[in-house]
């Protein structure tokens, strides 16, 4: 019984996500989980996941947030529009230039934050105004569209079905099965390896239970997507980003340093960690991911608008905190943030399907954000005092 309680406590947000999904699935008469809508959910919220992963790195370093994210999205989007549509430059070259622009913005902000030690809140607040202004200057206040087909296809297309299935995309299902198999192989290899070396492992039934749960989610998702048009490119992009950053944060020295700086900067410094560099890199990374998000967004809207990206920083920050990141830094995980982003996405999408007035939606979102975090904080507080 105690075990069950512990598992519940550790996964409060995951449970909340499942509950919200079920509520909306029922109240929308199942429309929420229709294949077409699931695909829609992914392409609508892809940018949030990308931004939230970057934001997590900033929050980890000590609860700092990057407010300039939305404006950077607008600026890089404007640059993409100018290069690809107006100048007609090669799309690969344009994409490279846009990503470099993102990195340069990050270098600028990171320099003031990490080396001059101006609080991140202030530097990125200034950035929020500055980059929005530059975006407006580049676009001259106008919207650029449409983007060429070959650019849009990069982001908006689906992985083609090599088997030409009629109602089902067979490649999509195959990929789901392959990913599940890879997961199972990695897990069992590490289990065998550990037992061979005599290291402690988790109980076998827990590992199997986890594997069954994760594989069934992957396969259900792949079948759902197969019934529509297959795997959207957006999912591929966010999948790669999530896996790479989950790996960095949990398995590498660089990731460990990120947590250490957030947990106790002085101790980190006296342990030989270059804390300035860690701080600097997390803001460079944030701007880089903002540039990727910008490229995704211009493709989805098929236009580069000066007002693009408004309030995107709030979506990213919200996802991080809902996903269990600590407002003081040093705690949080990439999988948690993905859960947070999906939670926000389902909330938005579910309310839209039900036709709730958009003003009311905003108010509800605010309340849900507070409730989710209060729930988390209180349950942890109880656990500590138990």
């Amino acid at each position, binding site marked *: 019984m105690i075990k069950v309680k512990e598992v519940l406590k550790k996964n409060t947000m995951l449970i909340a996500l499942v509950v919200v999904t079920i509520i909306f699935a029922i109240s929308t008469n199942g429309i929420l989980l229709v294949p077409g809508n699931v695909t829609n959910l992914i392409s609508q919220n892809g940018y949030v996941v990308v931004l939230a992963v970057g934001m997590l790195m900033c929050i980890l370093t000590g609860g700092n947030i990057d407010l300039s994210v939305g404006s950077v999205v607008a600026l890089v989007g404007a640059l993409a529009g100018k290069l690809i549509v107006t100048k007609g430059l090669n799309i690969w070259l344009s994409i490279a230039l846009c990503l470099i622009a993102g990195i340069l913005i990050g270098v600028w902000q990171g320099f003031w934050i990490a080396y001059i030690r101006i609080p991140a809140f202030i530097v990125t607040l200034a950035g929020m105004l500055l980059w929005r202004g530059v975006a407006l200057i580049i676009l001259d206040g106008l919207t650029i569209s449409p983007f060429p087909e070959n650019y849009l296809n990069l982001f908006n297309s689906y992985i083609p079905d090599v088997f030409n299935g009629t109602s089902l995309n067979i490649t999509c299902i195959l990929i789901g099965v392959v990913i599940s198999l890879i997961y199972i192989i990695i897990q069992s290899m590490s289990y065998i390896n550990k037992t061979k070396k005599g*290291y402690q492992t988790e109980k076998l039934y827990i590992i199997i239970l986890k594997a069954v749960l994760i594989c069934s989610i992957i396969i259900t998702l792949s079948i759902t997507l197969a019934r529509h048009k297959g795997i959207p490119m957006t999912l591929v992009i966010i999948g790669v980003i999530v896996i790479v950053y989950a790996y960095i944060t949990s398995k590498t020295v660089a990731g460990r340093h990120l947590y250490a700086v957030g947990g*106790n900067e002085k101790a980190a410094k006296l342990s030989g*960690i270059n804390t300035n560099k860690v701080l600097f890199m997390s803001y460079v990374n944030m701007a880089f991911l903002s540039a990727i998000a910008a490229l995704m967004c211009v493709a989805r809207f098929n236009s580069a608008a000066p007002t693009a990206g408004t309030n995107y920083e709030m979506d990213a920050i919200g996802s991080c905190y809902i996903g269990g990141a600590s407002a003081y830094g040093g705690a949080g995980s990439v999988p948690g943030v993905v859960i947070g982003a999906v939670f926000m996405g389902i909330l938005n999408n579910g309310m839209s399907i039900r036709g709730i007035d958009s003003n009311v939606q905003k108010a509800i979102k605010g309340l849900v954000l507070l409730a989710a975090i209060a729930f988390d904080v209180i349950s942890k507080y109880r656990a500590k005092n138990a």
Partner: protein
Amino acid sequence: MAKLLLEMKKITKTFPGVKALDNVNLQVEEGEIHAIVGENGAGKSTLMKVLSGVHPYGSYEGKILYEEEECKFNEIRDSESKGIVIIHQELALVPYMSIGENMFLGNERGSKLSISWEETYNQASKILKTVGLNESSRTLIKDIGVGKQQLVEVAKALAKNVKLLILDEPTASLNETDSKKLLDLLLQFKKEGMTSIIISHKLNEISYVADKITILRDGATIETLDNKTDEVSEERIINGMVGRALTDRFPKREGVKIGETSLEIIDWNVDHPLYSGRKVVKNVSLHIKKGEVIGVAGLMGAGRTELALSIFGKSYGTNIKGKLLIHGEEIKLNNVKQAIDKKIAYITEDRKGDGLILSNPIRINTTLAKMDKVSERGVIDMDQEVLAAKEYKNKLNIKATSVEQDVDNLSGGNQQKVLLSKWMFTDPDIMILDEPTRGIDVGAKYEIYCIINDLVAQGKSIILLSSELPEVIGMCDRIYIMNEGQMVGEVMKKDATQEYIMGQILKSGKGV
């Protein structure tokens, strides 16, 4: 015999795992200055926290009688309303507020919705005169020195109509002149009928001001001496405080061969990081050999920590000058990473603030300073990491459920051991231990001394920075004496006595 103002009867206070106070009795007469002495961790501060209501009624056992009635304080406010005011060791002043504002903080003049600044500053100025502080009550706290800030604390207490003033090591951060001034002020208050309790380590100060002296050891009262009638000598107080011959407290170290010089610094100078030109460390030279434990003794603010940090990859100060030789070779260490690579470890005095990541488990804290030992090309081998953490947990006998336990939940002694394992994990040759036994109980202290002995037996060099003289004398082969940023003496273990070391410090202080 004068009337008793305060009587604390059979006070017992337990923290999880530690009995901080065990049947402590304290009687304070009206109009006297009562000193409480004891080693670090003897329970002095805890006793005062019980008295002032920081530890509320019900969290301890025993009775407090004040002005002949029983008191049940739930918070500091309750004890202050009775005229019991405590001045803590760490000053509790807001730097960007004026003296007057600080004095009446939480006790504002005028009505709740409209503070009367005129009354505030007028009253503040009057009280400042009585404590002999020649500053405007509108001066900001950050603009006055520590000595004057201490006087502001006293003035703040007076503003609360204090009857019983408690000072917790009031002179710890003051220089000789400021200390004398403060003590004279206490004597003057005594003449005016005020009662005070003073907690101090400085025996000469106590014999100067105190009427009675209560000695605490390991959470229990040993005896109360009367300065007038009893034969009060420093030996008697020290014996009471320490309770046993000095030799038992420190494990014997035998057969350790002292080898070649491992680290040497020559003419080391460090400036204050903010005020360049103000020297914090002046022309310091020292050396240490393999298998040797050297001590650096000195009062708070002597510059020991600053010296250590400046050696440890320039982690403190600016304009660092001097030669640093490791194994006879002159080198420069520009950052902590280089210092760790040259096998130097600095174990901080502030384990919670600067040493450990409290929210992280033992495992992560253990490996943090030398991640390359458990990683390959930047990827961590978690299994190897767990093994390493377990190895040190067993070696140092760290009491925790597993290496995945957050260090937050460990006792002070065990946290200190985690900090030690973190630095032992870096395989250092030279370890600088800064107050390694501060705030931990006697048993854990002994264990840490044993660890130190094991380390030197492996040929490592240990530099022990400590303000506890018995510890320095008991553990070190050789002792440097530091005061006001300078080395003022060096003494071998066999010649070292507390009196000699204190004497050297005081002598050097007077010359300045």
